[in-house]
């Protein structure tokens, strides 16, 4: 893990990169990293996140600045801008069930080729996907999902990069920490090594590549 500034961290992301962003309706989202993505105008992004949040907040800022080319999410209904851009074909949107989304990311981070899920069998979601019968039950094969970058937010980070989360801000963060080539994290509090007890570490330090310093 290296401690860096937001400016340095976001400068590493090329235009057109695939980026996972943690958070659920903006809760547990690294706002400072997203503000810097907007400031440096990193565009043509392939964004993977649970939702499109709302304009002005969380990943919603990326739609405000028209920086997203492709979106994989489970819900965009609360962001009219994202919906407009989808209906105008400015962004390609892949809407997938929330449990499938998180499990595809988990598979990507755990070295699996994908998962078999009953969710979506017999619906529009099944179109173009392989169906596999296991012991008499039909499942969809949902492939693993990874990204070049994960932008995450924790409640506590220690000097090694161990992370702990608070309340409902955990959501996709620990799962995405496993599934990206480069993991960049902001934390509400940066604490000395040892403050987060081993049993309370949720994301172990070796998964974190860059921690943003709290100046």
């Amino acid at each position: 893990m290296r401690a860096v500034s937001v400016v340095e961290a976001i400068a590493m992301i090329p235009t057109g990169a695939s980026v996972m962003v943690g958070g659920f309706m903006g809760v547990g989202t690294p706002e400072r990293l997203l503000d810097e993505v907007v400031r440096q105008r990193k565009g043509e992004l392939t964004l993977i996140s649970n939702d499109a949040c709302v304009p002005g907040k969380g990943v919603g800022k990326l739609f405000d600045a028209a920086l997203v080319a492709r979106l994989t999410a489970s819900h965009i209904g609360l962001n009219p801008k994202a919906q407009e851009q989808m209906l105008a074909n400015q962004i390609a949107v892949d809407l997938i069930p929330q449990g499938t989304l998180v499990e595809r990311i988990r598979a990507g981070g755990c070295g699996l080729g994908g998962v078999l899920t009953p969710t979506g069998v017999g619906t529009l979601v099944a179109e173009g996907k392989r169906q596999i019968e296991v012991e008499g039950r039909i499942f969809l094969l949902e492939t693993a999902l990874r990204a070049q970058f994960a932008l995450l937010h924790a409640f506590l980070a220690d000097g090694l990069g161990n992370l702990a989360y608070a309340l409902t801000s955990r959501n996709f963060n620990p799962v995405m920490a496993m599934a990206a080539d480069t993991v960049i994290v902001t934390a509400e509090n940066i604490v000395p090594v040892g403050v987060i007890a081993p049993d309370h570490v949720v994301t172990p330090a070796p998964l974190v590549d860059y921690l943003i310093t709290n100046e």
Partner: protein
Amino acid sequence: MDAQTLIARRVAKELHSGDLVNLGIGIPTLVTNYVPPDLKVFFQSENGLIGTGPIPEQGMAHPLLTDAGGRPISALPGASTFDSAMSFGLIRGGHVDVTVLGGLQVDQQGHLANWMIPGKMVPGMGGAMDLVSGSRRVIVAMQHAAKGKSKIVRECTLPLTSVRPIDLVVTDMAVIAFPDGSATLMETAPGVSIGEVVAATDAVLLLPDAIPEMTL
């Protein structure tokens, strides 16, 4: 009593002590208001919490404690938090005893459509498909009709949420169950006759010998 209150009160009677329950947005959210205090029900919020409590008083909201719509909630003593993989493992894995969702259409085989209207409303399915596929019991809480048209139809014309049939639909006119895959009128709302329910329903309803009035 308005339609939403009636539906929420009737759904609340379906919950039992010890149940892990997931409530969707809209009418289902109102169900918590009618759960008797001595009934120990665990409510899950799929963004990562079991043990959701009431909406916090003004000034008491915690920015990192919200429901799946991003609105502030509280956590009761004994609550637990977890990530989204665990949350949907609970849902898909059959650990959620009851899910209560809103609906756009329910057909006479018990199929639910509640996530999109092609060309009009494409918000994404969120957690709905997992909830219907994996919960032990699926209850739909919705108005019987919208703009004068029955929402309980012969066959869903909107895209299905799941091929797994729901267990119960509670409306402002009736309670309908789907034993053996056929819509069956179980109860009528107070002051509503069986004939009125049948007339207001597009689906073919099976009518058992005894169809009591809802108790609330």
